[in-house]
């Protein structure tokens, strides 16, 4: 039977893998901001993976003879009060900062979307109880919570990750709840039930993947915050401790020297921090376009 198709006929879909690459290329090409964001993202990931192999100096090696040198050809970002190369320290710190933020975001994404999806799907009392618990978490300032956890469980990087994850959890939970809630009566959900899918399967396999595009934007924005939080917490002395290179500590230590004119100690790690946050913020829209099947043709 021939179908009278009133709209333009879409081109045939290619093999999934090939079409994903083509789609990636399209998303990047159609939006220069996304292209820049992905390029910066690659640089940051590169620094995290290969940084320690590439840097010219040992980030921990002190050299009292060359303390507090301004930026030069030998030391691009200058040296700190112990004569350590700031450039090497900034690059090496990428791995730690990225690990903390990725771990924190991953934890809050997984648990937040699970809790939120259940609340959005079942509604009623589940929703109300979960909602009030999330409100309570949101009312806690990050730093107070982090200090509490660290005081109770010890000053370790893991505990800082947990604190950051708990603080970010409500954002994912609320978003997942809203996205699941609008879809729970959709036709395809009822059709899935008729096809023999139980409630949990409907939720996990049918509804939740459809909530992913907006969640991707949230993840990306949150990565920026998480990096900022990790740096902020180590700035006040929680989690990471000197002499480990980490942006937050470096800014904190360098801040003492700004008054005496040694601006490079705080500026370069601060700039790296800003660049990382900026990149993740830009990345959001591109990620959403990538995971949204309707953007594919």
């Amino acid at each position: 039977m021939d179908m009278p198709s009133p709209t333009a006929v879409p081109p045939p879909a290619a093999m999934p893998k090939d079409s994903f690459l083509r789609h990636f290329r399209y998303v990047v090409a159609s939006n220069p901001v996304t292209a820049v964001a992905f390029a910066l993202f690659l640089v940051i990931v590169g620094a995290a993976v290969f940084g320690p192999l590439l840097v010219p100096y040992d980030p921990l090696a002190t050299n009292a003879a060359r303390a507090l040198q301004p930026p030069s050809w030998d030391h691009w970002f200058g040296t700190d009060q112990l004569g350590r190369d700031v450039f090497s320290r900034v690059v090496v710190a990428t791995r730690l900062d990225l690990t903390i933020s990725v771990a924190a975001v991953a934890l809050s994404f997984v648990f937040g979307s699970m809790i939120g999806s259940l609340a959005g799907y079942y509604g009623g009392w589940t929703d109300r109880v979960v909602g009030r618990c999330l409100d309570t978490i949101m009312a806690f300032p990050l730093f107070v919570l982090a200090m509490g956890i660290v005081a109770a469980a010890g000053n370790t990087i893991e505990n800082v990750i947990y604190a950051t994850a708990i603080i970010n959890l409500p954002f994912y939970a609320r978003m997942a709840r809203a996205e699941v809630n609008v879809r729970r009566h959709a036709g395809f959900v009822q059709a899935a039930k008729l096809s023999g899918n139980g409630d949990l399967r409907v939720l996990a396999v049918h509804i939740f993947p459809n909530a992913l595009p907006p969640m991707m934007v949230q993840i990306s924005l949150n990565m920026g915050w998480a990096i900022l939080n990790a740096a902020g917490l180590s700035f006040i002395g929680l989690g990471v401790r000197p002499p480990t290179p980490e942006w937050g500590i470096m800014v904190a230590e360098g801040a003492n020297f700004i008054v005496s004119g040694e601006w490079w100690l705080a500026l370069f790690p601060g700039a790296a921090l800003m660049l990382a946050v900026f990149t993740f913020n830009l990345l959001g829209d591109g990620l959403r376009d990538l995971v949204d099947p309707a953007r594919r043709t």
Partner: protein
Amino acid sequence: MTTVPLLDIRDLTVEFATRRGRVRAIDRVSFTVAKGETVGVVGESGSGKSVTSYAVLRILDRAGRIVEGAIRFGGIAVHAATEAAMAELRGREVSMVFQNPRAALNPVRTIGRQIGDVLIEHALATPATAKAEAIAMLKAVRIAEPEARYHAYPFELSGGMCQRVVIAIALACRPQLLIADEPTTGLDVTTQKAVLDLMVELARERGMSTILITHDLGLAAAYCDRIVVMEKGVVVEDAGAIRLFTKPAHPYTRRLLQATPRSGASVRDLLPERRPPPPRPANGRPLLEVHDLVKEFPPRHGAPPFRAVDGISFTVHEGESVGLVGESGCGKSTTSAMIMRLLDPTSGSIRFAGEDIGAIPAARFARAPHRGKLQMVFQDPTDSLNPRWTAFRSIADPLFRLAGMRRSAARLRVEELAHQVGLPAELLDRFPHQLSGGQKARVGIARAIALDPKLLILDEPTAALDVSVQAVVLNLLVDLRAALGMSYLLISHDLNVVGLICDRVMVMRAGGIVEEGETEEVLRHPRAAYTRALLDAIPHPPAPPALQEPAAAVAAQPVAASA
């Protein structure tokens, strides 16, 4: 007509910038609207009828651009006017009524204030006089107790009332041209009739011209002086309403006329080619027995509990096709959800093939043995497919979940199903948004029949489809029923569609069944007053000439151009 037309569209071409280059949405469209004339613009989705009207108001979205042609409105060159001049024109001289009245109204402002806003904006009222003017407008669109309704918010009003308010806003500044874009799609037939009667009457009173954009030829015939038929961005025919129906010149118009369901036509008459009538399967034993079914929703915000379904009983036999007709809110969807075991009834029994399936809680029915025998085709084909799944995966889901098939076996079965519903196999790897409406409907049907169900509930299966696609899908359903020996329970508000594929029909109102009988009998000699009102509200297109054979007795259908 010798006088200068009010609106003159010449060679209008609009292009949209898209991912695959520039797409021509409308191509050299020309037509005119004279003062006081009602012109219908009819076409299927993608025909460019809405784009044309948006171009007239210059409210195309950013990707769209008028590349050629001229639009003249009472001497003003709209295509070249400045944005400031357009702002003055919109609302004041030309106004628009949109499809979804709820979306067109601001939900946090009372309706009276919204009418007043338009008047003040165009300096036709001061804040002091706006209230009186707004109440006068509410009176003009026949809203009862206008003084009290002035303070109502849109959510407090029914869909029909909201559309009246939108019309009041559109007419408040006494425009010379009203553009109504599918103004009654989504409203019940009786409401549709009331709203359109009102609109046409007000237009006549005020000597206003109207452009009625619709996909429904019958509707256009009943209310318009002249009809412009569009296909794929091109005007294919422009003729007086009566002439268009009696002597359609263009083959597309003829096809459209033929595909429109009408009383007296069989489901095969809607198709362009002739096919033998489908065999009518003999009725077997009772398959579904519903007895005294009740659904009561718990009280909310102090309101008393609401009885959506109030003790209905009926039987569907094996191989039988039964229609359940009613307007929105009558409880037909609640009934179907209970029978489908997606919702638990408050009381009453549902017996399926002799077993009381009503006793199994809906939450556990997904894995019950009868699940595969009781399937459903949903109203909106787009909404009923998971946007992240390909057509293959959607159709195969019941096979994986309930039949325990492996991937290779499922692939064969899905291809067989696709063949059965007329879906080309190469479309199986596409995502829903890459398929047309008719193709999506076929995917939904293929999924529903994958497990050889005994009872298929069709919930407005063609409501979201174009008429020509509807004709094909209805015929497909008729053929499948004959081939697979299924029973159908068709839920619909459209008596014409029910008349085409149902043996028996039940009319439902306010949770109860008001009339039940053989389809022919109910449609020809309705006993209940409500059934009569439903039948009267259907706009009747005159029969197309292709069917004007000696025995067809077309004279029974007078042209209702002046209705």
